[in-house]
């Protein structure tokens, strides 16, 4: 295309500051992006546990004791909520990220993909719980 003359043009570029506050969709996006902090926090809790474990029994028990504190339990309840929210939003956006999936000649709907993801989490959770239960009883 022909390069535009400037003339009296003075295109106005709007600032982006605060863009995510202007639309409920974006607010939700920023909140679910924020779930990353909780995922990180839990990973750090586990990392500390792993370190403590490698340092011997006393160190491990100290970590285990800390896990029993009401503050820790409250914190983990919050973490649980955040993890569930993360899982939900993860699967909610999944239909956009996956190539079309055809089942019996029909394209799988977005809600079916999300439901499938949620079902996978339920299944994985049950298996994990059973494994842990087997290993520890």
């Amino acid at each position, binding site marked *: *295309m022909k390069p535009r003359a400037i003339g*009296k043009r003075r295109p106005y*570029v709007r600032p*982006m500051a605060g*863009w*995510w506050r202007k639309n409920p*969709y974006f607010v939700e*996006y920023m909140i679910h*992006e924020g779930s990353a902090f909780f995922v990180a926090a839990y990973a750090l809790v586990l990392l500390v546990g792993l370190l403590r474990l490698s340092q011997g029994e006393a160190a491990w028990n100290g970590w285990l004791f800390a896990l029993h504190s009401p503050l820790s339990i409250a914190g983990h309840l919050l973490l649980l909520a955040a993890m569930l929210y993360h899982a939900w939003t993860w699967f909610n956006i999944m239909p956009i*990220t996956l190539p079309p999936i055809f089942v019996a000649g029909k394209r799988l709907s977005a809600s079916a993909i999300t439901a499938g993801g949620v079902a996978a989490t339920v299944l994985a959770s049950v298996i994990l719980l059973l494994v842990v239960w087997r290993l520890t009883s």
Partner: protein
Amino acid sequence: MVLPARRQNRKESRPAMSEIEKTIPIEVLRYRPEQDTEPVLQTFQVPFTDDMSVLQGLQYIKDYLDGSLSFRWSCRMAICGSCGMMVNGIPSLSCKTFLSDYYPAGLRIEALAHFPIERDLVIVMDDFIEKLESIKPYIIPKTPRALSEGEYLQTPAERDVYEQFSSCINCMLCYAACPQYGLNSKFVGPGIMALLHRYNMDSRDGGAEQRMELVHSEDGVFNCTAVGYCSEVCPKHVDPGNAVNINKTESAKDYFLRFVMPKGSNSGAAK
């Protein structure tokens, strides 16, 4: 989201046609580069009937209240892609957004977000066009064919693979919905990726490898953070977010497999 629900309500509650004439306040973001230093809001009281679109409201303003209001429009039926604008902060085609859905509170209309404003509701779309031109948006034949040989055979299933992405009307609502484009306009963006993907997925095309360079690049698909709003606002159900994200997977595959497989053997990666 708010909008689809509203649309649904409309279907049920809207009387078939007009009744009494009512008036609705329409706030319009004005910007006249020869007189304004920055955009300003101006409110117009517009009489309307229930079957009037937002575009018809703007036409009323231009015809009878202020002839200097500028905006793009043409087909009035959601296929030419001209009349995209922000309606109460939501990227919308003004021809298929209806005034009655905003009555009595009124509505605010602004130029499409994330693009420079040329004048009033008219944005500068050079960037979009340059991107469109850069992706080789035409068939690069896999197997050249003479006209005398007739059409390429393509089954309905093969057509279905790309048809959705070929429905993009270039209205750019997805760009106005994409904060990553707003934050970094070098990002190739959703709509153009949909078109690129449309050609890559076409059974007649063999040019995927040429197009993937842009996909892989720093201006390519990895600028996307899967916000997903682009697909939400698309008036033609194109799902541009899907085109971007499928290509993240393709690009990542290529990123690692190129070391395993010699160049060229992987050209059909996007297929």
